[in-house]
């Protein structure tokens, strides 16, 4: 069996938080991400959803080692990269790339599009300069921008076109993992579908594995194979996408789904909302007999199997 494209084993991120008041600065620990384990199989799209502050972006940045984890391990193609130094990491940087939400600040305004897309080849010393430019123009065409765009600058493009350039730059190194952090949130409705389709097509063509971070559940439903739901820095539920949408078990997952705007005015309804405190207190309690697979320990909240590939954070009694 080949190793998964990306694996996170019990990673955490703790930030010091200044405690207000007092003469001397005092700090407490803020757990942005707490003991998260995730497996991104090859040739799959995994959605990571949750509200702002849930830790989903921090998790994605730790997977790329753009944020150093406080604990836990990161494996890319089965190789542990957690403790690698800058030089050791460089060949693995090629295998994992990222696309951000704000394409405007992600592209250098002083560089032409051909230079932007060719830059990763330059950094990794792949090919001669004309070859690099030729490949970059080829990639621009592949993401739907005519070769003539090569001499243009980012400010000349629309948001959707800039996001295409960011995708071309991320994929020119043929990575095995792409972390896409809200790549469609800033786009107009009519352009959003174009970018989602582009990601779908490239994923299938290249056999790419994508960690798709998003708060937009409708996009997640159309794009992903599997979904992990984050709340307060932990994964509270994970399942194949359709199981999340039709058979959500955790109160937080259900509250997220219930909040999605209706697709037709006919479905309008009055909603009742749970408070944050209610959601935090809503960890399900399950008996061993309810589980698809026996839990290893009892008492502490843990991810347990409640169906085929369906995991739920619960207390086993």
């Amino acid at each position, binding site marked *: 069996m080949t190793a998964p494209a990306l694996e996170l084993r019990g990673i955490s991120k703790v930030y010091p938080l200044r405690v207000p008041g007092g003469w001397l600065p005092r700090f407490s620990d803020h757990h942005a991400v707490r003991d998260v384990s995730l497996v991104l199989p090859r040739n799959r799209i995994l959605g990571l959803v949750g509200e702002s502050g849930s830790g989903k972006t921090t998790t994605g940045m730790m997977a790329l080692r753009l944020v150093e984890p406080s604990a836990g391990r990161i494996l890319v193609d089965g190789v542990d990269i957690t403790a690698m130094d800058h030089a050791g990491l460089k060949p693995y940087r090629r295998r994992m790339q990222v696309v951000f939400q704000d394409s405007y600040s992600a592209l250098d305004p002083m560089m032409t599009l051909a230079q932007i897309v060719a830059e990763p080849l330059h950094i990794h010393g792949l090919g001669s300069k004309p070859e690099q430019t030729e490949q970059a123009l080829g990639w621009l065409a592949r993401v739907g921008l005519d070769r003539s765009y090569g001499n243009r600058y980012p400010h000349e493009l629309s948001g959707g076109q800039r996001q295409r350039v960011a995708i071309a730059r991320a994929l020119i190194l043929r990575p095995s993992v792409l972390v896409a952090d809200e790549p469609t949130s800033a786009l107009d409705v*009519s352009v959003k579908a*174009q970018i989602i389709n582009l990601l779908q097509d490239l994923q299938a063509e290249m056999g790419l594995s994508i960690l798709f971070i998003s708060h937009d559940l409708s996009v997640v439903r159309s794009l*992903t194979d599997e979904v992990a739901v984050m709340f307060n820095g932990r994964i509270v539920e994970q399942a194949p996408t359709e199981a999340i949408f039709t058979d959500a078990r955790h109160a937080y997952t259900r509250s997220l789904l219930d*909040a999605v705007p209706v697709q037709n005015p*006919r479905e309008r309804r009055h909603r009742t909302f749970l408070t944050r405190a209610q959601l935090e207190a809503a960890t399900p309690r399950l008996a061993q007999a309810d589980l698809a697979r026996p839990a290893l320990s009892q008492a502490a909240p843990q991810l347990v199997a409640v169906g085929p590939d369906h995991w739920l954070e619960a207390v086993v009694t």
Partner: protein
Amino acid sequence: MRLLDVVNLTVSFVQHEGVVQAVRGMTLHLDAGESLGIVGESGSGKSVTCMAALRLLREPPAKIAADRLDLGGVDVLAARGRDLAALRGRVAAMIFQDPMTAFDPSFTIGHQIVETIQAHRATAKAQARAEAEALLRRVEIKNAGGVLDAYPHQLSGGMLQRAMIAMALSCQPQVLFADEPTTALDVTIQAQILQLIKELQAEMGMGLIMVTHDLGVVAETVDRVLVMYGGRAMEQGPVQKIFDAPLHPYTQALLASIPGRVAGRQRLVEIAGASPNPANPPKGCPFHPRCAVAEARCGVEAPAFQTVTAGRDAACWRLQ
């Protein structure tokens, strides 16, 4: 009663590169107690239309012209300083997408709401403060007394948006303009704020204009929809009819491209191309370069926005 009556509104901005035509001949109206959703993508002119109706645009660079622009029975284009101030707040109030920049960071929430109340009505400070606290409670802020003394940076985005709604309602306006009020919020907070706006609208008998790019927000909140594209109205009609049987090719394409309509991973229906550049709009119908059913004349002359069936208007040659 007509609260807002706009006929053939044009708004342009004079800039270094030339004249940007943000709104190119918009006609719309709103009756008392009614809710209208204005849907469009960025650059479609939806926000500028609302800003022009309240004369919130700096003139120049903005240039506003209309055959008629009446708000609460007042001719907005002819109104001067004091008349405009009376219009804003009491007749119409507006809430914005980013509550963080809509509040002044150096004053407390209470100070800013009290200031608004006192600017429009002769009210003693203690009385105004009591009203402000009652308003904060009405927008479902539990710790209303504490929030009065809080500064904007101490509140979350959802709480700030609630406080801004409270401030907008402080003079009991007849129309509330809500410009993308939930775009910056999390999905659960969005649902709460939309439900709150709907409840307040029904309770106070207010007119509501909901400006959004999100068809889901429209499906949740309004009675009637106006679809804008490239500074023009494309289609107008009752919300249920628009969702069930859209008339205009643009509306049809927009509805078809919504993700997550059906189960399973799949490609989405996409609209090829990009939105028109307002500095250099295409000739004819602004949607024709992206329209799947465009004909030769679509690129020559823009179709009129006219009635197709009772209560439904559209601007498309195929419907005339």
